[in-house]
């Protein structure tokens, strides 16, 4: 299972060239051991970052990665997703786009055999990994204003049909979600893609006390999802929801454990970039949940061992901060750690995909309840309450907020967040366009770290 190098290597962040060197030590059998959809013929994915860089992911030349075999496996799997989705269609699987709800509808989809849910909006990282404005420019040509959130890349991807296959179904959630994305979904609709629109309510109260009827609305929406899926697959077996929920919970608890281990360890055992990738994996398992679960198990083991040995990837004196709103540019996570900071709390607006789903109530109700925890459907105050707790007990020494120009909730929330977190230094930065990180921005982050020190 493990090659010698991986057993002896000290945990550290390494670059693409280092990975290429270490990859030469990976045995052929090991490469063949991991494959998606249990398909060894075309399903291998244990490739070094160089593979994906050659295929156009230019930022990989500048990123630093964790050096464990588990992380190598994770990156190979994550970067392989586009191919995997096309292969899924070629294998006769149904590919279902679930847009806007971030974490719940896929659990329903996965109750149907051979159905693969995915989130087209996750394409928003692609312009940054590629250091390319191709998708953003295409979106502008298709009518999206220039000053719109980077998730507009999704529309371009639908238009080009080169980043994921044409979905067999699209479920689009609107309502108390993100405006920009609701508009994008409407334009996708206008490209000729049919979609079932789902309405998600604004929670209004906190995530414990909201009107019961909201749960009922969601349940009725999930029934509509179910019926549409039954229409597509001609399968109507709701018992499939139970293992699907269990699997989602297994993933959620693993991800939570990895986060807690990482946050609490004296020396950070896993970099923030890998940790963010794991968090977002909760949404749909990067289009192969079984394999993703296996990968996350492996990362969990790696992290646990590192914690046990008291070793990690950052210096012990790294300063703990929280991160609010995910960065579209992965390089920022590297930069923050390079400046001597470590991430010990996040609010990536996907809370609904992180919380456990109840297993002792009717499945749709359980899913509705988990969705009602969503950050996006509540108030800013609710959204950052966990970060405030971290600040109160002095676990969090500072907060970094990333904004996207044209992102409606960023525009309205950031000043408020700064005010609400006034007890610690808060650095609010705008994520620049792809390949746009400047020395000035690096200096701001470094100065922020210096302030905290």
């Amino acid at each position, binding site marked *: 299972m493990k090659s010698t190098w991986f057993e002896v290597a000290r945990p550290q962040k390494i670059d693409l060239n280092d990975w290429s060197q270490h990859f030469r030590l990976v045995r052929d059998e090991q490469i063949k051991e991991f494959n998606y959809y249990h398909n060894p013929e075309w399903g291998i994915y244990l490739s070094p970052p160089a593979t994906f860089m050659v295929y156009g992911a230019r930022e990989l030349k500048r990123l630093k990665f964790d050096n464990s075999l588990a992380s190598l496996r994770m990156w190979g799997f994550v970067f392989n997703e586009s191919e995997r989705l096309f292969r899924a269609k070629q294998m006769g699987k149904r590919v279902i786009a679930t847009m806007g709800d971030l974490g719940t509808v896929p659990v329903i989809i996965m109750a149907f055999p051979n159905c693969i849910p995915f989130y087209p909006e996750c394409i928003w990282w692609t312009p940054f990994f590629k250091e390319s404005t191709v998708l953003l420019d295409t979106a502008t040509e*298709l*009518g*999206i*204003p220039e*000053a*719109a959130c980077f998730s507009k890349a999704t529309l371009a991807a639908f238009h080009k049909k080169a980043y994921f296959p044409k979905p067999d179904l699209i479920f*689009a959630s*609107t*309502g*108390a979600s*993100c*405006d*920009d994305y*609701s*508009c*994008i*979904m*409407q*334009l996708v*609709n*206008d490209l000729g893609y049919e*979609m079932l*629109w*789902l*309405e998600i*309510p*604004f929670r*209004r109260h906190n995530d414990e006390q909201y*009107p019961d*009827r909201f749960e009922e*609305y969601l349940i009725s929406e999930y029934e509509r999802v179910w019926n549409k899926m039954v229409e597509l697959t001609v399968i109507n077996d709701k018992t499939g929801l139970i293992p699907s929920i269990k699997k989602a919970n297994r993933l959620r608890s693993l991800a939570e454990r990895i986060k807690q281990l990482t946050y609490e360890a004296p020396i950070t055992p896993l970099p923030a970039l890998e940790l963010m990738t794991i968090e977002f994996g909760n949404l749909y398992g990067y289009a192969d949940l079984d394999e993703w679960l296996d990968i996350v198990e492996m990362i969990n083991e790696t992290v646990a061992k590192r914690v046990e040995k008291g070793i990690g990837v950052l210096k012990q004196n790294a300063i703990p901060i929280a991160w609010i709103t995910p960065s579209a540019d992965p390089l920022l996570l590297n930069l923050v750690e390079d400046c001597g900071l470590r991430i010990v709390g996040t609010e990536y607006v996907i809370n609904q995909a992180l919380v456990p789903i109840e297993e002792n109530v009717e499945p749709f109700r359980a899913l509705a309840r988990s969705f009602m925890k969503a950050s996006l459907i509540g*108030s*800013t*105050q609710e959204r950052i309450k966990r970060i405030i707790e971290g600040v109160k007990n002095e676990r969090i020494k500072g907060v970094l907020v990333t*904004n996207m*120009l*044209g992102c*409606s*909730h*960023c*525009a*309205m*929330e*950031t*000043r*408020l967040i700064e*005010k*609400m977190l006034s007890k610690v230094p808060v650095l609010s930065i705008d994520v620049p366009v792809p390949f746009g990180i400047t020395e000035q921005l690096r200096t701001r982050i470094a100065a922020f770290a210096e302030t905290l020190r």
Partner: protein
Amino acid sequence: MELIGYTCSYTPVELLAATGFKPYRLLHGNVGFITLGEKSVRVDACPLVKSNLGYIMANQKKFAAVVGSTGCDMARRMFDVLKELTNIPVYLFNNPRTDKPTIFYDEIDWLAGELECLSNKKINSEILGTEIDRWENARNRYRRLDQKRASNPSLISTADFHRAVMNYHKGEIGSAININENQSDKPRIYLLGSSIPYEANQILELLELDLAIVGDFNCGISRFLNINIKEKSLNGIKVAYYNQPPCIFKRPNQPFYEFIGTQIKELECKGIIAWTLDYCDSYEFELKRIGRIFELPVLRIRSDLSFQNLSQLKTRIGAFAEMLA
């Protein structure tokens, strides 16, 4: 405290008025208020939202409450800011976003309950009936004016009409409405897009130097005329507000386009003015479609409400009018 502020065309004014407070539509677009608003939100927020926020902050004592909807993200999140920075009670309801009336109907029930608590007053069918009559009468008066605006040739200008409807939006519906007729043979156009704020009347005046705006789908002007309450009850309110021509944000939004298409045809419009505010996703994302679907010349006017580019705009409008003529 005499006002209940509100931000969205799905907010039933009759219900707000039933509390005894005056419904006051937040439609401010003034640089001073924007600057005030920018103390609490980023500059890349919608100027109308920033301005409204600034207005409320500067006039907190006037407001008994502010009611909003989930209509657009920024307007919705303004309530988080108000909650944090003021003591004004805020109420935010889910407005219709797909074709399911249930959520909206239940939300109006909830809002009625909250407003009863706020005003400490039972909102019964008698009170509601009175308010429905009062507001329906007002709308009828404005409808008659709107017919003059829509007639061919148009008999009143939209700039004048806008000045008149400000009273409705500000809850002043008792007084008489007088608009001098002023026949226009200029090219007939339709106006749609982001709300025209109170302070943006000058834009309408500028447009009508060369054009005749004979109809609009605009929350700041005549959209309220689509509310037609047939049953004098809370249920009647719900049905009327739910069934108004849909917001561009309702998904899917084909019915919105169908409604506008019919209007443009009936009003014999030769062109469209698409007025958008900076960062107004609902219209900015749709501009290309608007041009394509209606197959009419579209003049796009984007504004940050600073009105610094009026002379440039005047030239563009003139060129557009020339093209239509």
